Structure formats: structure tokens, C-alpha cells
């Protein structure tokens, strides 16, 4: 065996051993740099400290992505969490109190911001929480997590929803049969039926914008920098730097979906 053959074989063996290892370790964002295919991998970073609940992101999203403005569905939304010092949930009147321990709402998906301290508990009812009772309170922006293992895609019976090479989950409006299985399969509740097209609808990370080098509508409209989008395969991207070196959280890791929306200052009470 001459040197050339030896080198060739060594490379083959190393490559052969490396591929399955990297395939298994898709979990770790760090290994993604080495992954083949697209050199873009979109991820999102949301800062729950910076979010002030103005709802400009939701407004921009709805108008940008033509989700009927007054329909009670939205690709992105903002949640408010108010946790009281006694750790109890506030309920008006004599309803059975399940005691979830949190007071949370997202009226109109947060489209018009949060302009009152009253918490919306559904069916037109509200509860008021006094400032002195609050132990912690904050806002959490939500959107599609563009999971690495999207359960919504796994359960689509016809191949009408799919993950692109750069990591965004899209829906084919011309092929979706509207069975709703993907809506059921998403633990984050990001999917819904589009009121006009009558097919599954979801956040696309503003695919038409990010592929043109723009930011998503929600990121662009956020005055506080609470929302950021970045390319995980670009080591100089500020979002990548934060995700790699900062302490970031994800939502509902127990489902094994490997969400790609990372959170700063995430709290255990966030649902």
C-alpha cells in the first residue's frame, strides 16, 4: 500500500465514522456548523426582559403575512405572566379554582399591546391584580419554534408541510387537505386554519423577507430588540454568539422537538 492509498483509506474511514456521529448529535447547535447542505440555519432569539408587551410585532406580523387582522388567530403572539406573592391564581366570583399558580393572558394575541393591568381570563371576564401582590411579571413573545424535529411535519399525511434546508417549516397551501393533524401535533399551539384559505397556517419566519436579507416583520417592528433572528451557521452572527455562549432556554424540551427559538431570561412559569 503506498502513501496515497493509505491517506485515501484513512479519510474514508474517518468520514464514515464522522457522518453517523454528526447525524446523532443534531441536538447540539455547535455541530451544525459542520453539517452539510445549506449554509444557512435560521434561529430566533427572544428576550423576555426586553419585551414590554407593546404588541407591535403581532400587528406587523398580521399585516405583513395577510392573516385577517380581526380574526382571533395569529402566527405570533405575546403572552403576559403575572405571578403573585402568595403563588395563587386570581379568579373572580365562584368558579372552581384549579389553582394553576399563574395569571396569564394574551388578549387578541397581544395585537393591541397590554394597556391595562387587568388579566383576561376568557369569555369576557377579567381579574385585577394589585401591584403590591405581584412577585414577578413579564411578557413572553411566542412564534413557531421551527423545531429540528417538527412533530407537525411528521404527522402530515400528505406531505403538505415540510422543513426547508435552512430550517424553516412551511405549509403548501395548494396541497394541504385541512385535516388538522398538524395543529393537534404541535405542543406550542402555533398552528391554526387560515380563515380565508382554509388550510393549515403558521409562522414562516417571514420566509419572503429572510431569504431577501431582511429581518422578519416582528423583529423589524420591535423597538426594544426583544426579538432577533439569526443564522446559526454564521459564527459572527450576534444571535449565534448569544445562543452559543449565553444562557438560553427553550420551550417544552420534554417533547423532544428541539425548538429553534431560544429565550433569554426564561422563567419556569412560562407555558
Amino acid at each position, binding site marked *: 500500500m503506498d502513501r496515497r492509498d493509505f491517506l485515501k483509506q484513512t479519510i474514508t474511514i474517518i468520514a464514515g465514522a464522522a457522518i453517523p456521529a454528526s447525524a446523532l448529535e443534531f441536538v447540539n447547535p455547535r455541530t451544525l456548523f459542520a453539517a452539510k447542505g445549506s449554509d444557512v440555519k435560521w434561529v430566533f432569539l427572544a428576550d423576555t426582559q426586553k419585551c414590554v408587551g407593546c404588541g407591535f410585532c403581532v400587528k406587523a406580523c398580521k399585516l405583513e403575512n395577510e392573516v385577517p387582522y380581526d380574526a382571533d388567530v395569529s402566527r405570533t403572539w405575546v403572552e403576559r405572566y403575572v405571578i403573585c406573592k402568595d403563588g395563587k391564581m386570581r379568579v373572580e366570583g365562584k368558579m372552581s379554582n384549579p389553582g394553576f399558580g399563574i395569571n396569564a393572558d394574551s388578549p387578541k394575541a397581544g395585537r393591541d399591546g397590554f394597556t391595562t393591568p387587568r388579566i383576561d381570563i376568557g369569555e369576557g371576564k377579567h381579574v385585577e391584580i394589585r401591584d403590591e401582590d405581584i412577585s414577578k411579571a413579564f411578557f413572553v413573545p411566542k412564534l413557531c419554534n421551527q423545531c429540528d424535529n417538527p412533530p407537525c411535519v411528521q404527522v402530515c399525511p400528505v406531505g403538505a408541510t415540510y422543513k426547508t434546508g435552512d430550517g424553516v417549516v412551511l405549509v403548501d397551501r395548494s396541497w394541504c387537505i385541512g385535516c388538522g393533524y398538524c395543529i393537534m401535533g404541535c405542543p406550542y*399551539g402555533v398552528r391554526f386554519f387560515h380563515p380565508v384559505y382554509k388550510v393549515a397556517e403558521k409562522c414562516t419566519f417571514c420566509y419572503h423577507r429572510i431569504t431577501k436579507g431582511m429581518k422578519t416583520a416582528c423583529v423589524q417592528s420591535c423597538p426594544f430588540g426583544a426579538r432577533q433572528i439569526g443564522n446559526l451557521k454564521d459564527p459572527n452572527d450576534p444571535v449565534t454568539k448569544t445562543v452559543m455562549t449565553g444562557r438560553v432556554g427553550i420551550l417544552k424540551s420534554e417533547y423532544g422537538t428541539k425548538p429553534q427559538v431560544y429565550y433569554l431570561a426564561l422563567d419556569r412559569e412560562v407555558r
Partner: protein
Amino acid sequence: MIEVHGEVWTIKEFFTYPNEYIYWSIQIVMYPFMTGLVAGAFVLSSLYHVFGVKQLKNIARFSLVFSFALLPVAMMPLMLHLQQPMRGIHVMMTPHFTSAIAAFGIVFSTYGMIVASELWFVYRPHFVAMALELKGQNNRGIIDGFRYLLFSALTLGAYDVSEEALEKDEKAVGFLAGIGIPVACFLHGYAGFIFGSVKANALWMTPLMPVIFICSAVVSGIALCIITYIVVMEIRKILSRMKGKASGLPSFEELQSAEIEEVKLTSRYLVMFLIAAITLELLDLIFRGYTAVKSWDILREVIYQKDFYKIFVMQYGMGNLLPFILFKLPGLTVRRAALGACLMLFGVFMMRWNVVIGGQAFSSSFAGFMEYVLPIIPHNMETVKEGLVGALAVIITPYVLFYFINKVMPVFKYKGSH
């Protein structure tokens, strides 16, 4: 104001995500209920054809035909449920087999072909006889002309009704009934899998779901066959009384004794499967309470508070315990069996309801509830399809189909070898 799908029948309480509604409504309750009936009816007929339970001869042929009448109806709720019913065919065109629904088209049509083939073998002599009889007529009208064409086509050109040929038919029936059982169980068990595999839904996700679904499917299928059988026999009894002995029909007494025998035997299987179903369901409930994972707080709230009446009173009490007692008390009468079977059918329906609707009664946030209000009086297409009207349409259709199928494949008059 543009209406969002599901908004009209969903009441949201406390903290739910903005996009959450009851997306799977009454038709998805009907779907496993109807496939359950199909599978159950088929399994009942197979008890005779495969396991040679001779006493079930009469009801076997009946339940096979009825299972065939139910087949298209198992698909009906899905079509009424889909937002894009015209694209339903995509499931066959580009199946994505990682989805539990994708196999539906294939399993369903395989099963349909098995039932159709089995029926063909059972009724082949009848088709041949009819075709030959009509051929002999000189002046066929339009109707008889059509019937002639129909029966000729149904023979598939096989006019051999010799002893040998019929023996082969019988073997084929046994074979088809044999492979039909696993396929029927698969068809329905995997309806359970559709729910059981949704990891995002805390109530649905359990590996027991397919087995629970099969057991309750057989319960409902047998119950429906008993009810329908009793109804048909009662009608025949009235007819035989009216026409008297001269008509050549079986006498009132003959029918009477045949009926109660058949019902008694069938109800034994019914109770067996009921016990299996309940055992599994309770095992699931106990396990959830004992392991008490994150979702248990909200599940407990739904099971023991919100849906207590629907689960423990309507499903387990009225739908399971009461009919169990009715069947087990000594001296079973036809009337009591009919009542028991009706209650059982109701119990299985409530079980489907409590799984499908109950699984959506809480938010994925585990901090809020959703309630389904069945649209009774429809005000648009959506509330027709996914309301009381749509559900009733699904319930009535198999009987309409049975009426027409019975014209071609008579269940009672026909004295075939099977």
C-alpha cells in the same frame, strides 16, 4: 368579521394559547365510532366463518352485509371534517407514512376489498341465479334490464355453481374472514394510534390507546348488530303474523326462539370484550394518577371536575355498568338485550367523545380549558358539517345503504350454503 374555524363552538377559559380551538369536533368523534362499528360487525361475522361458531350463522351473514354498508360511512365523517374535502385523495396520492393518517387510504381500501370479496363469495350463487333468471325473461323493462346488467356484472363471469365450485367459495370465505380479522383490527387499532401517538396531547398519548380502541370497537360493533338484528327480526315476526303460515315464511315461534338464542350467544361475546375494554381504560387512568407527570394536574381537573359527569356517569355508569348488569342478570329477554345493547352503544360513543373532545378540553398551556358546544341549529356550512346535522347524517347513512345493499344481497330470504 371573519370567523376562525372552531371559534363558534369553543368556549375558552383561563389561559389558552390564542390559536387554540376545538379543531377536532363531532365528526372526529364519529370517525372512530363508525370504524369501530365496521370492525366490530366484521369480527362478529368472522366468529362464525373462522371459528365455526355455528349458532351465529344467521347474524354472521347479516353482520357481514351490515359491515359493508358501514364501510363508506367510516369515511364520511372524515370528508365532512376536512377543510379541503376535495383534496382527500391526496392521502392516496402522496402518502407520508410517518403520519398515522397516511395509511388510512390503503388500509381502508384493502379492508373494503376484503369485505367485498367475501360478500362476493357468499352471494355468488345468488348473483348467478338472479342473472340467469333475468336472462330468461323475454320482455325486460328498464328496471329489470338494469338489474340484469347489474347481476351479470356482479357474477364477474363466473357462472359455475357446481358443488365443487361452491366448496371452493366456502374455503375462500374462510380465508378472507381469517385475514379480515387482523385487517379489521388494524383498521381500527390504528384509528387509536392516530390519537395515541399525538405526543402534544397529554390525554391521548398512551400506547394502550389502540388496544382500548379495538376492544371498545368490537363492543360497539356487536351491540349495533344485536340491535339491528332484533329490529329486523321483530319486523319479520310482525310480517309472519300478518301473512300467516301459508306465506312460506318461518313461523312466529320459530323466529322467536331463533332470535333469543342468537342474542344470548352474541351478548356473551359482547360482555367479554366490554370487560377487556374497561380493564384497559381503568389501567390507563390508574397509571396516570400514580405516575402523576406534569400534565396530571390539568388532566385530573378535566377528568374529575370538568368532565366528571360525562366520564363517570354517562360513559362508565350508564354506558358500561348498567348494561353489564342488564346482560348478566339471569333470564335475559330480547327486550332487555336490546336496551342493554343500546346503552352499550351509547357508552362507546361517550368514550369516543371523552377521548376526542376531552383531549381538547384543556389547553396545551396546562393553564386553561376549552369547552365544546355542539352546534345544534346550523347557521352556515361549517355548523352543518360539524354539528348535530352532520352527525345525524353519518348515523342514518348506513341504514339507507343497508336498504339498497339488501336489495342486491338479501340478508334473510336467501338460503345459501353459508
